[in-house]
């Protein structure tokens, strides 16, 4: 039994959304998704999943504040404390049990409501081994970037190329918060923050909400939908301890990709897949993830991005949406946004950003600092 995406709804991503509370933001994205899917959530949906972390929201049990604005009052609903793609994986599994025909997955960021964002991120560090060091949590990214660059002999120029590509791609995405005509030189000269990472290597937070509607193929047919198929999905966690994890290769992404490719029957990802949306919340992550996903050989991604292979008009477009660098860091909604972008491309609905003749795409996300967790989805155009 196949599972497909039959509805996509997103609000614009913006640095802040003072006129909305989080409920109203979610209501907008949900309304768009249900209009896109042509469904009534009160009657047609069997399960609702929200992807949220209490500390990003500021509530002791965020689950409580979710149902009304999704149409989920007195309906089966749950919170997956994970990235949007992990939520997607759970919705797929629910549908594959046969118990659920139509499922809704939601994730959002209202980072502008968080006054001490760095403090909240720091709070996820190990209380015994790491917190006492009092270092800014992004030091973890700096360390990993350093290890990755040295292990793969990737140059800082490659990081700058990622930044320029994704910020410029953002200019062609109406929902991007940080589209800008940044060039590689600018990126290389921006202020050093967590060496080797510079200011422009780090995506800025944004508010935004993404809602996807999933259906079994039987339900999609009944609703006369034209689904984008979720051909495969995988997720995995490397060691949560900084002291015992792989620092160079994004192992979590490799394991997740192995599972997703196996289910999608993708044997040669570099040729079977046409484009990708991967996590680039720190510029080096885009390259590290491409290699972990088998979409570039180890150490090669840096050379290829400089060469232009990953540009919108390149041989293998990566993050044509603008990625997180261009659209903004929407925290737990990141993976869901990537899946939405891949789906829009496969449906032919990507407007100015539309890639020609794409049939299969990969969406990947990482669960951000300090985790070593991530998920991968392989999506395919119908029928």
């Amino acid at each position, binding site marked *: 039994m196949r599972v497909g995406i039959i509805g996509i709804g997103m609000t614009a991503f913006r640095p802040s959304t003072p006129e*909305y*509370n989080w409920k109203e933001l979610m209501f907008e994205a949900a309304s768009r998704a249900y209009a896109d899917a042509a469904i009534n959530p*009160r009657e047609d949906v069997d399960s609702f999943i929200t992807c949220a972390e209490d500390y990003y929201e500021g509530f002791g049990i965020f689950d409580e504040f979710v149902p009304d604005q999704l149409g989920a009052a007195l309906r089966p609903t749950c919170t997956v404390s994970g990235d949007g793609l992990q939520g997607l994986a759970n919705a797929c599994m629910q549908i594959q049990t046969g118990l659920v025909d139509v499922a809704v997955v939601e994730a959002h960021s*209202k980072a502008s409501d968080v*006054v001490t964002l760095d403090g909240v991120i720091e*709070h996820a560090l190990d209380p015994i081994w790491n917190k*006492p060091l009092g270092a800014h949590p992004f030091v973890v990214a700096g360390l990993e970037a350093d290890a990755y660059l040295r292990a793969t002999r990737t140059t800082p120029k490659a990081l700058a190329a990622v930044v320029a590509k994704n910020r410029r791609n953002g200019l062609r995405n109406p929902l991007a918060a940080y589209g800008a005509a940044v060039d590689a030189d600018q990126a290389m000269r921006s202020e050093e923050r967590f060496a080797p990472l510079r200011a422009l290597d780090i995506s800025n937070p944004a508010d935004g909400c993404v809602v996807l509607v999933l259906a079994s193929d039987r339900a999609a047919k009944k609703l006369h939908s034209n689904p984008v198929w979720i051909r495969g999905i995988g997720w995995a966690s490397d060691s949560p301890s900084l002291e015992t994890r792989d620092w160079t290769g994004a192992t979590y992404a490799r394991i997740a990709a192995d599972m997703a490719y196996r289910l999608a029957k993708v044997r040669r990802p570099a040729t079977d897949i046409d484009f990708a949306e991967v996590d680039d919340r720190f510029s080096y992550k885009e390259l590290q993830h491409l290699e972990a996903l088998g979409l570039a050989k180890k150490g090669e991604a840096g050379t290829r991005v400089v060469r232009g292979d990953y540009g919108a008009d390149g041989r293998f477009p990566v993050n044509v949406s603008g990625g997180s660098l261009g659209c903004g860091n929407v925290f737990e909604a990141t993976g869901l946004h990537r899946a939405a972008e891949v789906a829009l491309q496969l449906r032919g609905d990507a407007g100015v950003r539309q890639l020609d003749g794409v049939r299969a795409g990969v969406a990947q996300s990482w669960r951000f600092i300090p985790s070593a967790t991530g998920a991968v989805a392989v999506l395919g155009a119908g029928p």
Partner: protein
Amino acid sequence: MTARISRWPGIELRAADLIEGKVTQTRFRPDAKYAWSAGEAMSRFLEELQNGRFIARTCHKCERILFPPRMFCEECFRPTDEWTFIQDTGTIETFSVSYLDTDAKRIVEPILVGVVSLDGASPKMGMMHYFGEMTKEEIRIGMRVKAEWKPPGDRRGSVLDIRYFRPLRED
């Protein structure tokens, strides 16, 4: 229990073990502060509280008057239609007589708190608040009450602009 399980893990500690430093421990105070945008519905709600009024939203589809107000009806899943004022009188739906404050500390003078359903809104639409000018012997479910507002100059746009709900006296 089962013969297979002979050992039940867990080493119990007493509060004194922590206080007297008998166990290795690490302390941390998270820096987690938030300032939530109130959003459209709650902003107007708070504004009207400062004016000494309760405001609700209507949904013409299910014909309910929703309080606290919201920009979408959770039953019909559609945007709500209009603003409408409701009364500041109501009925006690339930209550508690609390000898605990927010930090679970014991207090001598109990707090009377509960839910009031408000006149003019759909049945059962209510809010939580304190009760005053009544004793713990007098308070009962079904009692008719009225909001006791702070003077206009003291109102800030908060549910605390109401001091408490007090017995409704028929004039």
